[in-house]
């Protein structure tokens, strides 16, 4: 865990230092009237006159103490900016992760029960459509159809104006309405991985001897599938959950910019466009950190669900 965290900071730092010009020169572009002294002061302020390893260590020291620096754009603390946007992105991602789970696992199971059937093939095409479709395009189409033409759903933001003054239930309904489109499309894109994995895992288990034994004992098919096969087939899916996180968080850049959702992805996009290096680095680190936490949770879940792991740790 520690070496990975260290590697993450190193890559963040390298990426930012690929930049040909310094941020100070960018300030100059924006305000050509900036005096040489002002530019000099700016360079000093951000420590840009120091050698690169020293800058890395200084920055690392800050990161370790959870100080991500100040934004170039508005001078606010980066961790503050991220903190106010993180809950929105997390909510969106957790909601779609949940939706992906409850849709893709049944899809995977049903396809595995009758591999090669029309049903299996139709589901394959369905999940591959989600996997291959440019999500920004689908989002755009959905906005036009459901938002503009039919007028059923709002197309931007996460709440209507005046949401704060509504009674609680109405507020909740308002949020749900705003989240339907982004969450559905995000989940559609993520179905393939999980359902294909469930399918092949299930197929694998169904070939095992103990399934034949269970059937030979005369157990009803339902019991064989649910009690014997499913339990074993779903174990590896837990690991996949952890692996799905970076894709989802990364995708939030696109979704949040399209639907104008004020989350971390939108902040990242704005920072990238403005070359706000401290914010870019901060979000990169937080994003990678979230993935690590996700993987850790998946490992713990695996440990809890699978009693074999507790006995044979090194498998």
């Amino acid at each position, binding site marked *: 865990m520690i*070496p*990975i965290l260290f*590697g*993450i900071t190193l*890559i963040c730092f390298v*990426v*930012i230092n*690929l*930049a*040909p010009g310094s941020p100070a020169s960018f300030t100059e572009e924006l305000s050509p009237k900036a005096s040489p002294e002002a530019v000099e002061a700016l360079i000093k302020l951000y420590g840009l006159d120091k050698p690169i390893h020293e800058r890395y260590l200084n920055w690392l020291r800050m990161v370790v103490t959870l100080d991500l620096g100040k934004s170039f754009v508005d001078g606010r603390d980066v961790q503050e900016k991220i903190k106010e946007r993180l809950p929105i992105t997390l909510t969106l991602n957790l909601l779609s992760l949940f939706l992906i789970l409850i849709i893709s696992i049944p899809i995977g199971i049903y396809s595995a029960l009758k*591999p090669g059937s029309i049903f299996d*093939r139709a589901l*394959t*095409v369905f999940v*591959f*459509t989600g*996997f*291959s*479709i*440019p*999500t*920004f*395009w*689908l989002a*755009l*189409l959905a906005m*036009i159809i459901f938002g*503009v033409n039919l007028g059923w759903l709002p197309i931007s933001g996460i709440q209507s104006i005046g949401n704060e003054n509504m009674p609680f239930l109405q507020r909740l309904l308002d949020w749900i309405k705003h989240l339907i489109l982004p969450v559905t499309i995000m989940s559609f894109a993520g179905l393939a991985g999980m359902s*294909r994995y469930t399918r092949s895992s299930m*197929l*694998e288990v169904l*070939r095992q001897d103990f399934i034949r034994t269970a059937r030979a004992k005369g157990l009803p098919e339902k019991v064989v599938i649910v009690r014997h096969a499913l339990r074993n087939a779903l174990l590896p899916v837990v690991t996949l959950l952890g*692996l799905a*996180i*970076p*894709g*989802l*968080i*990364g*995708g939030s*850049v*696109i979704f949040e*910019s399209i639907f104008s959702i004020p989350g971390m992805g939108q902040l*990242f*996009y704005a920072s*990238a*466009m403005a*070359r706000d*290096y401290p914010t*870019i680095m901060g*979000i*990169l680190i937080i*994003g*990678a*950190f979230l*993935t*690590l936490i996700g*993987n850790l949770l998946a490992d713990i879940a695996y440990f809890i669900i699978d009693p074999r792991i507790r006995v044979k740790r090194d498998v």
Partner: protein
Amino acid sequence: MFKLIIKRVLKNKLAVAGLTFIFIVFFIAIFANNIAPYDPYKINVYKVLEPPSKEHILGTDELGRDVLSRIIYGARVSLKVGFIAMGIAILTGTILGAIAGYYRGFIDTIIMRLVDVMLAFPTLFLILAVVAVLEPSIYIIMVVIGLTGWMDVARLVRAEVLSLKEREFVLAARAMGASSGRIIFIHILPNAIYPVIVAATFSVGGAILIESGLSFLGLGIQPPEPSWGGILSVGKDYITVAWWMSLFPGIAIFLTVLSFNLLGEALRDALDPKQWAED
């Protein structure tokens, strides 16, 4: 083995459809000059935002350029980015994976830690950060997409190498005095090639999707160069008045990526011995 795989893939109707479509896109990209009805850069202020008609089958864009011609030329960008990014990812992943699996020990630990680190980043964040820091250009996009997509290949190749390097034919080669490089490249890697081909097929589709997303965000292929994501990016601003600018490039991206993915899935099935037990 090769013939058998081809035979199995050709049995899969979806994969055949995908393969056909990929050939068509290739054909269009190569002969874009001859096929495109108009110059994709030619601005015509008298024909701005015209809906699809006999003259302009897919309509015109905000500068009066022919959308069909721009989509035809856009195929070049997509295929170029898709295949070169795939090449970079596969090459990096194969080499690092082979080194890690063959030499084990310290170097294995370092490479696998690097894989873990790279996998921890939300890929799109990392790509956007690099593209934003450097000026976006088609070359940078290809390299960045490639360098953020090699980790799965490295893991896969490493696992293959680990299982292959103890096999008799490798031991025999070593006994005959073959060098490590020769053993890796001549004896081991050719035996690990099929799963890599599957990964490569998926990675072309993935790279095309990422490129179009970047161009859509304005951080990919820069106008006036025609790219599918770029046309969409402008199209979204005119979507209520000119739906054709948004609909058609999206279909092009979708069908191309879908074709590569269906082909990849068919290849994966063809290589799975359990599915063909009766053969």
